[in-house]
């Protein structure tokens, strides 16, 4: 019986708990059982605490018994990416340098979810400090794609996307700097939303590149993603970039369909390097949505091709500054090595993994005297051109439709020794990040080999609603979410 919960949406699990039809304890127990069965094989979690999850569930049941009104997420299990601070619970960001670190406070989103009665099942694996596109850069172990365990789940929120795809949790939070929610969502066949820059407070999100970082929901359906987004969005005075314009979306409105909506396709950005099956999925979705009444138009993003070069200057520059705080003095790991200067060097040199060191060096170089104008300043100017492209395109269209990734999930190890090849995989997700625009990846079907394909919708600032509406319309038409990974089907007996 308990296995039946695993395929329910978060929305319906919340309803079952609120109505008293099922207890939060039963629901949580079912997911913990599933996690115990598959999480080690998939490498989805860096930290699990079933006892504390059960305690959170019991507390929801107690509150219900006392007649308290419960929120839609009360009793719903949620997985948290390991770069979100959780009071007293290990938060490592997938890095050795934070091994054993237990933050003395909760991130804003964690606080909001606690208040909502959500049940935290664990901290998910990720690329170290969210730097990567495959979760192979975790200092602990890689995460495997539930659809094909020889392949990567994407990254950096690979653990969060894989755990939702594997039915280990109905919901998860990730963070997205250049595609780290959307790309793993696409690779794992789930929904991933990167909200508008400023929609969600980053207080307590361990900083990577502050002008780009956003926290976003991962779910199996558009409605579930909306539910989680609603629980975390809005102004928080502890993050001065968070904005009051960020409003919860209306779930009823998501059912309105796409009639009259103008969807722009940036054909100029597609072309070479894109897998033919992904191109076919995009064409198919454009046809289907047009059949539902959407108006499919052409848009251009002339500078989007420059976005990877722009991003790999801006993000490492900001990272090199943000990661200066890991010095072995106030928290985290210290490597003893002579005087203070050598202690810094040894702590950081041995505490950070390859990719993080590479990006710190790149960022330090781009910001250093003599190179600042040629690299960092120029990249910030090109960023302005990219933002303008989006503003222009989104006057012609209400949302932009494009693939999330140029290829289906690649094999573990395939790109790990070629950082540039790994970076080029982000070509479709990075432009929206630089523009600060909201963007969502939804499952759009499978390749002939059975690997998930994700498509992406990008919208105007604070119009998350539109993106979720498109994803919902697609789901209603083509139920890709009904297919489950073999691992789940076998384990769910």
């Amino acid at each position, binding site marked *: 019986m308990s296995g039946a919960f695993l395929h329910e949406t978060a929305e319906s699990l919340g309803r079952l708990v609120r109505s008293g039809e099922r207890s939060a304890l039963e629901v949580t127990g079912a997911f913990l059982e599933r996690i115990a069965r598959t999480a080690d094989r998939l490498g989805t979690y860096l930290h699990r605490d079933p006892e504390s999850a059960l305690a959170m569930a019991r507390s929801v049941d107690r509150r219900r018994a006392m007649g308290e009104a419960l929120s839609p997420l009360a009793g719903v299990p949620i997985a948290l990416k390991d770069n979100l601070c959780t009071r007293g619970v290990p938060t490592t960001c997938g890095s050795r340098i934070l091994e054993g*670190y237990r933050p003395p406070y909760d991130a804003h989103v964690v606080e909001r979810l606690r208040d909502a009665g959500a049940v935290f099942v664990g901290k998910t694996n990720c690329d170290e400090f969210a730097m990567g596109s495959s979760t192979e850069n975790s200092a602990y172990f890689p995460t495997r794609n539930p659809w094909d365990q020889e392949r990567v789940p994407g990254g950096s929120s690979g653990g969060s996307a894989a755990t939702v795809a594997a039915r280990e949790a109905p919901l998860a939070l990730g963070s997205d700097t250049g595609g780290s929610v959307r790309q793993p969502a696409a690779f794992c066949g789930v929904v991933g939303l990167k909200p508008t820059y400023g929609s969600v407070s980053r207080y307590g999100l361990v900083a990577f590149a502050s002008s780009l970082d956003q926290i976003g929901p991962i779910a199996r359906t558009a409605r579930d993603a909306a539910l989680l987004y609603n629980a975390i969005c809005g102004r928080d005075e502890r993050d001065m970039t968070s904005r009051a314009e960020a409003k919860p979306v209306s779930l009823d409105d998501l059912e309105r369909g796409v009639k009259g909506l103008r969807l722009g396709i940036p054909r100029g950005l597609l072309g070479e390097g894109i897998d033919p099956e992904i191109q076919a999925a995009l064409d198919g979705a454009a046809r289907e949505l047009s059949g539902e009444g959407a108006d499919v138009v052409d848009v251009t993003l002339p500078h989007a091709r420059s976005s990877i*070069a722009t991003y*790999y200057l801006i993000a490492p520059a900001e990272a*090199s500054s943000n990661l200066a705080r890991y010095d072995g003095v106030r928290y985290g790991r210290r490597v003893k090595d002579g005087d203070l200067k050598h202690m810094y060097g040894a702590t950081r040199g041995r505490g950070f993994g390859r990719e993080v060191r590479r990006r710190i*060096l790149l960022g330090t*170089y781009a910001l250093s005297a003599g*190179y600042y104008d040629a690299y960092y300043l120029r990249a*910030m*100017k090109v960023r302005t051109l990219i933002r303008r492209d989006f503003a222009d395109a989104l006057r012609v269209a209400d949302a932009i439709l494009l693939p999330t990734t140029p290829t289906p999930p690649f094999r573990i190890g395939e790109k790990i020794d070629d950082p*540039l090849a790994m970076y080029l995989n982000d070509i479709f997700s990075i432009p929206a990040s630089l523009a600060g625009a909201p963007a969502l990846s939804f499952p759009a079907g499978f390749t002939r080999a059975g690997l998930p394909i994700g498509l992406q919708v990008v919208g105007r600032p604070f119009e998350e609603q539109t993106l979720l509406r498109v994803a919902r319309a697609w789901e209603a038409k083509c139920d890709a979410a009904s297919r489950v990974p073999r691992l789940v089907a076998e384990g769910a007996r």
Partner: protein
Amino acid sequence: MSIDAETVRKVALLARLEIDPSEEPRLVRELASILSYVEQLQALDVTGIEPTSQVGGEAKPALREDVAKPCETREEALGQAPDRDGDYFRVPQVV
């Protein structure tokens, strides 16, 4: 612009990042390949274009009231230090 082992060592020192000498050739190769890729930005005309340092930065910054609020206790703040001396963080010899 090219990058050599000398530059990598200099940048690593600026970043307080100890690099094992055996790693240098690989780092030089990787950074050179990334830098040669980002070189494409030099071809774009950015005359008169304002830089974007933060999206939404043009909006009026939302300020909060300047009032004292409780924060973590001294014990919480010091509790995870790799080395401490009473109410102080202890560091190795500076000079």
